[in-house]
C-alpha cells in the first residue's frame, strides 16, 4: 500500500553531480567558443568535480574491482575496464593541457612548455576522451534513466493497488 520510495538522496545527488560534470565538460570542450583562457580554467575546475564523481561512486568501483576476476558479467567487466581507461585519458588530457597552458601555469608563476608535442598530445587525448565519454554515458544510461524515473516530481503516480 505504501507509495513507491523516491530515489535515495545519495543517488539523486550523484545524478545531479553527474549532470553538472557533463555540463562543465561540454563547455571545457569548446575552446573556440569560450576562448582559451576560459577553456583552461574550466578544465582545471573539472578536476575536483571528477574527484567528487569518483568518491560518490567509490563503493561501486571498489566492489567491481574486487570481483573482477570472479563471477562478473562481460558487460560489467568491460564497463569497469573502460572507466579505468577513461580516467587515464582524462589525466593525460589534463596534464598535457596544463603543460601547454598560457594562462593557468603563468598565473602560478610557472613557464609553460610551448613545444608542439604536448599540444598534439592534448588535442588527440581530448578528442579521444570526448568519444570515450560518449561510450561511457551509453554504458551507464540505464542507471541514469532509472534515477530520472524515480526522481521526485518525475516519478509516475501509481494507484493504491499493489502489484501482484
Amino acid at each position: 500500500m505504501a507509495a513507491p520510495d523516491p530515489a535515495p538522496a545519495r543517488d539523486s545527488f550523484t545524478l545531479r553531480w553527474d549532470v553538472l560534470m557533463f555540463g562543465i565538460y561540454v563547455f571545457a570542450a569548446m575552446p573556440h567558443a569560450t576562448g582559451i583562457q576560459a577553456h583552461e580554467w574550466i578544465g582545471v575546475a573539472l578536476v575536483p568535480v571528477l574527484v567528487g564523481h569518483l568518491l560518490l561512486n567509490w563503493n561501486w568501483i571498489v566492489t567491481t574491482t574486487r570481483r573482477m576476476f570472479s563471477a562478473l558479467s562481460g558487460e560489467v567487466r568491460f564497463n569497469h575496464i573502460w572507466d579505468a581507461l577513461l580516467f587515464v585519458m582524462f589525466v593525460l588530457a589534463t596534464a598535457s593541457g596544463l603543460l601547454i597552458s598560457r594562462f593557468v601555469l603563468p598565473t602560478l608563476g610557472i613557464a609553460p612548455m610551448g613545444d608542439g608535442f604536448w599540444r598534439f598530445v592534448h588535442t588527440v587525448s581530448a578528442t579521444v576522451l570526448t568519444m570515450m565519454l560518449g561510450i561511457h554515458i551509453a554504458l551507464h544510461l540505464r542507471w541514469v534513466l532509472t534515477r530520472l524515473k524515480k526522481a521526485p516530481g518525475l516519478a509516475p503516480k501509481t494507484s493504491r493497488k499493489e502489484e501482484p
Partner: protein
Amino acid sequence: MRGREQTRPLARLEIRRSRKQDERPLNPPQSRLKLYTRGLIEVVGLEMGLPCAATLGLLAYTRRRRSKAGNLDRDGRLQALSSKP
C-alpha cells in the same frame, strides 16, 4: 649606401603588409551564439553522440541476443519472453 636606401622603402612596405596581415582575423568574426551552437553540435552531437548511439545499438543487440538465448528450454525451444522489464 645606395643599396640600403633602395631597400628601405621595400622593407617598409613589407612591414606594413605583415602588420595588416596580423590585424586581419583569420576567420570572419562569428556571433557568440553561432560559436556555441557549432561547438555543441560538434562536441555533443558528433564527438560524443555518435559513439554513444553506436554503443547503445550494440548493447541493445547483444542484450536481445542474450535474452533470446536465455529463454530456450531444455529441448531448445524458444519460450515466450517475460513481460517484466
